[in-house]
């Protein structure tokens, strides 16, 4: 029996050794991460902010699809121009001035002569040309934003001339980041992760901060860029760490515990935790996210055909008690919508056809359309064709429990007018598979992020050709609408563009491929030691469109320095070692005595 004993023991010993080595590996992994963290952090205070739900995909601004990346990148790269806090007026960024000539369709940008990259190389027109050309490549996710540009020419080291069509020039000028050509031209931009993990130049940017560390799925760290050329906007804080969380629960508990100091996107149910607590400030900002109910109106769609009847869609719109849903699901932290553009978008049109909550009107609309008889289950059916029943399935992302809740209340609303709504919560991947390419769904409750607030970009979702690329979930096709979009792109004045987009919004409001639902407020909670934070930008200070959050932010009282309580750790560790050693000695001694 000795053989087994020895082998079993050795397995245990190997396991324990593995355990110890794992602890060391874990420690060294943490070690390599924090090495860089301490390198430059002496120049100012460090603050940590949280983010949950999605992770940084890549830090390459031409490839990223993540909002967190966009938020980080707006601190490290500059676009040609920016918007002011009111989100309406254009202000200088990399370009200190610009001349627009609508007749020639050109705009000439004069770059700030003192602009310099964090490695000391001056920012020149070559960088702008490189960035705009990269943005236009097929692999780029911002290609559509520069699709109106026909050429970008350097006419001097600090002057760039862009030829474009239409009036929506701010759409690209304020959103395309200019990257350092001298770094990027040495890499393959279609696969570049946005930073070099090896080599002396970890990351080069021209913004107020520079990226100094990034651990995928865990955090990214930026530090004050000492070479930032807009001296008046030099940050007072030294380091910002963006910590990524899987769930809102873990992010909120970290905020409560004080390990992060700011978070946007707190759920309404959590507000009570922070309100009235002197350690925290609670603010709300308009959201860039909005929810809608898409109805399958595609002429060839395979959903329930009764939904192609406009009266049925109008009845549904009148039967939904959006105020009640917003109050129940979002506890009042949401505004109901009437347009497919969010109210903060510059092209939002306010005088649209609306559908007030009115179940009796909804009932009479259905009666007039011939849905006068009921099945045994109380579902309305067409009196002349009983196979046409008002029974629908709505797809809703299972990852967002608030959306599922909203859909469930809608089902209750619609049951009052004899419409049966089955709520089917699925992963977004399964939803996409049902919807595209054949449009087999009845309805879906989903959301869009309207993050280019200077352009009516989301109106393009309803273009006929979007059905092919899989973004039109309503299958709306209307050539009049398509022609208006073409006219919008070639408008010759801002006012004309506004009017056309208003006309398009009204078309959608009347024909109801989407029933716009609500835009939940962005709820921000941050430590009361952080001051000078604005909540006016859409999306809030921590993750929205505010590129000035960290340049303006001031830490009121210095956060207490990390407790230099090394002796305590040594004592605790020492005690643990002594206990383990004593136990080991005791075990060995007892064995000896028995044997």
């Amino acid at each position, binding site marked *: 029996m000795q053989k087994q004993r020895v082998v*079993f023991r050795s397995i245990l010993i190997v396991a324990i050794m593995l355990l110890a080595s794992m602890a060391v590996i*874990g420690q060294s*992994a943490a070690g390599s991460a924090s090495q860089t963290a301490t390198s430059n952090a002496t120049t100012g205070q460090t603050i940590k902010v949280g983010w949950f739900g999605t992770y940084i995909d890549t830090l390459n601004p031409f490839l990223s699809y993540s909002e967190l990346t966009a938020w980080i990148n707006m601190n490290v790269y500059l676009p040609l121009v920016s918007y002011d806090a009111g989100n309406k007026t254009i202000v200088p960024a990399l370009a200190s001035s610009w001349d627009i000539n609508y007749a020639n369709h050109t705009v000439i940008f004069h770059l700030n002569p003192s602009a310099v990259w964090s490695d000391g190389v001056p920012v020149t027109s070559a960088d702008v040309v490189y960035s705009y050309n990269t943005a236009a490549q097929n692999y*780029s996710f911002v*290609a*559509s934003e520069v699709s109106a540009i026909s050429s970008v020419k350097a006419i001097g080291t600090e002057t760039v001339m862009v030829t474009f069509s239409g009036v929506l020039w701010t759409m690209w000028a304020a959103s395309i980041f200019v990257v350092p050509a001298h770094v990027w031209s040495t890499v393959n931009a279609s696969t570049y*992760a946005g930073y070099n993990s090896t080599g002396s130049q970890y990351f080069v940017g021209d913004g107020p901060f520079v990226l100094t560390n990034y651990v995928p799925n865990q955090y990214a760290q930026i530090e004050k860029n000492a070479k930032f050329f807009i001296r008046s906007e030099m940050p007072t804080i030294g380091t910002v760490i963006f910590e990524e969380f899987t769930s809102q629960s*873990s992010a909120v508990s970290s905020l409560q515990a004080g390990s992060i100091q700011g978070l946007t996107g707190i759920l309404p149910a959590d507000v009570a935790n922070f309100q009235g607590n002197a350690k925290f400030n609670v603010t709300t900002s308009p959201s860039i996210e909005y929810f809608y109910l898409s109805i399958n109106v595609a002429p060839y769609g395979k959903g329930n055909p009764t939904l192609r009847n406009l009266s049925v869609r109008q009845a549904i719109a009148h039967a939904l008690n959006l105020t009640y849903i917003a109050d129940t699901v979002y506890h009042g932290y949401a505004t109901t919508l009437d347009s497919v553009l969010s109210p903060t978008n510059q092209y939002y049109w306010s005088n649209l056809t609306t559908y007030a909550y009115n179940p009796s009107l909804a009932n009479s609309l259905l009666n007039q359309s011939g849905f006068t008889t009921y099945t045994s289950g109380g579902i309305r059916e067409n009196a002349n064709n009983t196979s046409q029943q008002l029974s629908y399935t709505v797809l809703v992302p299972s990852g967002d429990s608030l959306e599922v809740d909203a859909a469930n209340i809608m089902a209750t609303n619609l049951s009052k007018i004899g419409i049966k709504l089955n709520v089917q919560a699925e992963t977004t991947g399964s939803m*996409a*598979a049902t919807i595209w390419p054949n449009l087999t769904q009845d309805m879906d409750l989903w959301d869009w992020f309207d993050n280019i607030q200077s352009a009516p970009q989301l109106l393009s979702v309803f273009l006929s050709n979007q059905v092919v690329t899989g973004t039109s979930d309503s299958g709306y096709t209307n050539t009049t609408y398509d022609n208006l979009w073409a006219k919008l792109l070639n408008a010759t004045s801002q006012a004309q563009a506004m009017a056309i987009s208003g006309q398009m919004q009204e078309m959608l409001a009347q024909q109801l491929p989407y029933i716009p639902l609500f835009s939940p407020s962005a709820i921000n909670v941050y430590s009361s030691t952080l001051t000078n934070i604005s909540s006016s930008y859409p999306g809030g200070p921590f993750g929205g469109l505010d590129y000035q959050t960290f340049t303006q932010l001031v830490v009121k009282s210095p956060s207490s320095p990390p407790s230099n309580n090394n002796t305590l750790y040594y004592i605790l560790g020492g005690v643990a070692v002594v206990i383990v050693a004593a136990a080991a000695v005791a075990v060995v001694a007892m064995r000896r005595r028995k044997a």
Partner: protein
Amino acid sequence: MSEFGNYLLKRVAFAILSIFIIITFDFFLFRLMPGNPIEILYRNPALTSAQIAVLNRQFGLNLPLYQQYYLFIWNSLLGNYGISIYYRTAVSQVLYPSLENSLVLLVPATTLAILLGIMTGRIAAWRRGTVTDGFLTGSSMALYSIPTFWLGEMLILLAIASSSFPVSGMYTIGEGFSNGFVQLFDLLRHLVLPLVTLTLVLYGQFTIIMRNSLIDVLDEDYISFARSKGATERYIMRKHAMPNAELPMISLIAVNLGLTVGGAILTEVVFNWPGIGLLIYDSINARDYPVLQAAFLIVAIAIVLANVVADVLYSYLDPRIRYS
């Protein structure tokens, strides 16, 4: 010994076959998933057909299926898992750090659970039929019944209320640790709650396994023989029963590794532990096929190999086994 050699050969052949089946399975499973990953990831009003075509080419989704399959087998064997659709970098760059983090949690938890399980299982078997046995068996079954995620949440509630232990992540991010010792201490503090959760839910089953296999052994003839010769219970336990009962534990532990991995996913999700379970969970939502495929492959192959090793070890050590 040649009989053993044959057995060994058979087990290894089975392992290779299993791995091949797993790879094949892995490939087709993800091709069957609804939804083109490109479509859902880049649900972008502005994406053109030309751009989608470029992406499909980049991720090899435009090739005929048999070619994709052939490439997949070849690349899996080479350890090349392709490019992550979400992170746009090599899958191994995302996967290996997660795997390492998972092991930091899994290895201590499993080891602890096994050691504790052996201890209490032994006591329960020794005192079978007594109140002690009833209590130990009952509490083991109770621990085995606790939903992992709920236990984790209860501990989070406690930790927040007492502000004692960090409830999320693996170490304090961005902290300038003054030395490695403080840093290790930080890791251990973060490890406490997930470790306790995982150990508790695994511990119950190991106690029951140990108790039952010991009781089986205690009824063997040679034990009765030893007892009739006047050997003390303690001596019989230590010299005869334990060595024989520990043996079946080896293969049972290997068989239970699949369950352990399941427990780890739930624990990692609840505690935001950046391991492979959390990676799988996130990749499902992002429809990141290459990462999911690689994660599934690595976990499944590791378990198959562990089982083969355990089986071979078991049959090598136990003289009674017939290599059939």
